[in-house]
């Protein structure tokens, strides 16, 4: 098991009520609770609603569309994402496992654990961080994918975070559009449904993988968290304010290399830090970008440090330069 800091597991409703009561007394502003409650509702809708639609993904100069189907069948979640342009890609989430299919190179990547099994709900510290570092506000009502949505904005208070705007279906709470923007209000990345049927009747067939059995000539690549709980001994000396460590453990990559993996989150986004012994082959150092994710790679003694997350370049860079042995 990956060693993990779990400040608070998802609490039953009594616990939540007590927490809410505590916040009425302790919270610096009422909106700290609003922001967390809003996120809870969006997460709950993403998990429980059945929906099918076409999603447009825009980042940099690129624009691509995909088909997304989500089914919650008696508490079990099934999700299928198939892209509609370019080389075929398929992502299947089923029984707590994520599989990504790359038919052109005959590769399937398997992530045995999923976010929902692993990610703790927001700690009070993180709930406070949300409004310490973002201004959370209701924006206008806008029509998206034929739905009269309610828009909400998380505006960063410092330059270490991006801004986030979400458009939610008012009746279900489901997000139908999400936009990340920089300090000039330029879009960094955007996901938007162009059409969606929320509450649709979804058949199990619709969420089945195209390749239910991996063909024998395909390569299966796993990057599971390591089974042994080990202290990595690594830390980020000066994480940006509001970022709290939520994961500290080893991860086994495809060629059985063990890589230290730390995750820091401010409640809205996360930054991953990977540390591994440097290989002899040349590595691309410096900055790169993958949609809304910025990546910074540097060498530290005999180790390769890779930092990535949904934050500006300056933030991944600052974190990368702050990685040290405890």
């Amino acid at each position, binding site marked *: 098991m990956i060693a993990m800091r779990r400040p608070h597991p998802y609490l039953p409703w009594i616990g939540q009520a007590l927490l809410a009561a505590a916040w009425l007394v302790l919270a610096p502003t009422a909106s700290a609770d609003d922001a967390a409650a809003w996120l809870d509702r969006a997460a709950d809708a993403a998990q429980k609603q059945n929906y099918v639609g076409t999603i447009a993904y825009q980042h940099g100069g*690129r624009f691509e569309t995909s088909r997304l189907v*989500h089914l919650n069948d008696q508490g079990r979640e099934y999700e299928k994402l198939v892209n509609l342009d370019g080389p075929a890609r398929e992502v299947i989430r089923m029984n707590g496992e994520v599989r990504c299919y790359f038919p052109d190179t005959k590769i399937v990547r398997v992530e045995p654990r999923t976010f929902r099994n692993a990610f703790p709900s927001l700690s009070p510290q993180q709930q406070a961080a949300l409004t310490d570092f973002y201004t959370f506000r209701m924006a206008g009502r806008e029509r998206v994918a034929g739905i009269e949505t309610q828009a909400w904005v998380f505006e960063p208070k410092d330059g270490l975070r991006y801004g986030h705007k979400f458009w939610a279906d008012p009746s279900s709470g489901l997000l139908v559009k999400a936009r990340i923007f920089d300090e000039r209000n330029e879009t960094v990345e955007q996901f938007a449904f162009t059409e969606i049927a929320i509450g649709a009747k979804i058949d199990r067939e619709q969420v089945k993988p195209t390749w239910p059995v991996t063909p024998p000539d395909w390569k299966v690549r796993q990057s599971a968290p390591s089974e042994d709980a080990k202290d990595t001994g690594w830390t980020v000396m000066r994480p940006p304010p509001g970022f709290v460590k939520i994961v500290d453990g080893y991860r086994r990559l495809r060629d059985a290399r063990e890589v230290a993996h730390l995750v820091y989150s401010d409640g809205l986004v996360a930054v991953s830090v990977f540390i591994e012994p440097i290989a002899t082959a040349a590595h691309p150092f410096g900055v790169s*970008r993958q949609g809304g994710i910025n990546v910074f790679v540097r060498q530290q003694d005999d180790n390769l440090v890779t930092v990535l997350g949904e934050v500006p370049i300056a933030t991944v860079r600052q974190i990368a330069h702050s990685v040290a042995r405890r």
Partner: protein
Amino acid sequence: MREQISRLMDGDLEGAEAEAAFRELKQSEGFEHWTCYHIIGDCLRRTGAPTAGFSSRFAARLASEATILAPNTTQKPQPARLPLAWAVAATVAAVAVVSSVAVSMLDPQPTALAKAREANVIRTAQPRPQAVSPDYLLAHQEYSPTTLIQGVGPYLRAVSAGDGR
């Protein structure tokens, strides 16, 4: 001074310290150290160093290359406001600085420079979409709160570029 230049290259300097180091780079001795450290770094990383006369050849090629400073109107209509519409025709990443300055001189709009800069950032990132392993992107996605509220949609970040290797 050498140490300050080395730290500057590592990104360890900020504010006044960084400014002082930049001033050193304007002196020929400081610039020589900077060049030397970069060649050492390239050799250590085995990324190869430019051959003799690279700078003059590069300057000559740059001078002979046409630079289009107006948006390309024959492009396919792009969704929303895309920075790439500002097609600064620089084909080499290093041209970015030169062309940005040229744009800012010809176009008084304050946003032009910013847009041109962004266009260059995106362009230069494209030739190496695989700079980060999909292992890392997928592992990160599992813990990103965006997955919690947006489902598997954000996994497109990990699968849309690259071929899974």
